[in-house]
C-alpha cells in the first residue's frame, strides 16, 4: 500500500508512514514506540518537522537525566508533525498482533491526530476480530473484507510455474489444469473455511 501511495507521480506532496505489528515484538511495540517510528518517517519527509523534533529533543535533554517520552508527548508531537505536512497517509498492518492494551492506546492516539488533522488518511489491516475495536473509535470507517482472489492466485501460480526448474516435465495440459482448477478451488475452500463453525484457515499464497 505504501508503495502505491508513494509511486503515484502526481503525489509528490504526500508523506507516508507505515508500521507492521508483530506478535514476536509485542514487548517493544508499545504505542509510544509505534507513534515514535511514525514520527521518524514523517520527520525525514519534511525539514520543518525534523527541526521541530530537534527542538523538542534539545529541550528534553536540559531536564535532569534527559526526559523520556510519554505517550501524550508523542501524540502531541505527531499532531504537530501531521499539521505541518500537506498530506499524510499512515498505514498500520496486522492490528491483531498488537498487544490489546497497546491497540486501544494506538486507536485512541490516532483518533486524536485525526481530530486535529481530518485530512490525514489512515489505512489499517487486521483479522476480523479487531473490527469491533476499530469501529469503536472510528464508527464511520470504510471496511473492506479481504479474501484470496482467483486472479491473484492464478497470477501467483503462473509466476511459480514460469520459474519451474524443470519445465519440460510438465505437459501443457497439466499446466492449464493447474491454472484453471486450483485458483477456483482455493477460493471456494477459503470461503467455506472462513465462514464455517470452526475457523480452519489455509495458508494460501502470500503468507
Amino acid at each position, binding site marked *: *500500500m*505504501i*508503495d502505491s501511495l508513494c509511486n503515484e507521480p502526481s503525489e509528490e506532496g504526500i508523506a507516508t508512514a*507505515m*508500521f*507492521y505489528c*508483530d506478535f*514476536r*515484538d509485542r514487548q*517493544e*511495540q508499545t504505542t509510544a514506540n*509505534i507513534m*515514535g*517510528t511514525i*514520527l*521518524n518517517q514523517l520527520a*525525514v*519527509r*519534511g525539514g520543518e518537522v*525534523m527541526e521541530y523534533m530537534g527542538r523538542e*529533543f534539545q529541550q*528534553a535533554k536540559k531536564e535532569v537525566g534527559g526526559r523520556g517520552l510519554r505517550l501524550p508527548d508523542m501524540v502531541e508531537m505527531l499532531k504537530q508533525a501531521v499539521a505541518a505536512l500537506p498530506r499524510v497517509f499512515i498505514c498500520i*498492518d*496486522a492490528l491483531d498482533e498488537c498487544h490489546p492494551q497497546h491497540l486501544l492506546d494506538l486507536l485512541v492516539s*490516532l483518533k486524536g491526530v*485525526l481530530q486535529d488533522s*481530518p*485530512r*490525514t*488518511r*489512515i*489505512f*489499517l*489491516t*487486521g*483479522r*476480523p476480530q479487531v473490527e469491533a475495536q*476499530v*469501529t469503536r473509535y*472510528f464508527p*464511520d*470507517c*470504510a471496511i*473492506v*473484507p*479481504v*479474501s*484470496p*482472489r482467483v*486472479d*491473484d492466485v492464478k*497470477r501467483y501460480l503462473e509466476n511459480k510455474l514460469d520459474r519451474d526448474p524443470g519445465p519440460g516435465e510438465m505437459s501443457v495440459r497439466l499446466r492449464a489444469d493447474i491454472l484453471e482448477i486450483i485458483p477456483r478451488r482455493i477460493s471456494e475452500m*477459503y470461503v467455506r*473455511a472462513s465462514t464455517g463453525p470452526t475457523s480452519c*484457515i489455509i*495458508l*494460501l*499464497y*502470500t*503468507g
Partner: protein
Amino acid sequence: MRYTAYLHSTNTGNVNSNNIRDSHNITVNVNKATADGDQEVMRWLSPLDPRGRHQDVRTDRFDGVGTWLLEEKEFRGWRSMEGGADKAVLFCHGNPGAGKTYLR
C-alpha cells in the same frame, strides 16, 4: 539532501544503514545519509524501524497481486481525501493468509 537520500533508501529497499540489532521491526537504524544530530533525535523517538519488514514484504510480493483494492470504491473514496475525518480510516480485514499485508 537528507530527504532525498532517505527517499531513495525507502523506495528502492536499499536500506543503507548500520543496524545495531536486526529484526523485523526492532532495529535501531543508523542511516549513513542522516545527519548525526537527526539520528540522535530519531533514536530518542523510537527504537523501532519498520523498513526491514517492509523490504521483506516488497521482496515476497508478486507483481499484480493485491491490486484489486485500488479499484474498490471504498479505497477510492478514502484515497480522494474529499471527505473529512469520517472518511479518514480504511480498515481491511481478513483471516490469516488472505493477503492483507500484500494489498497495494
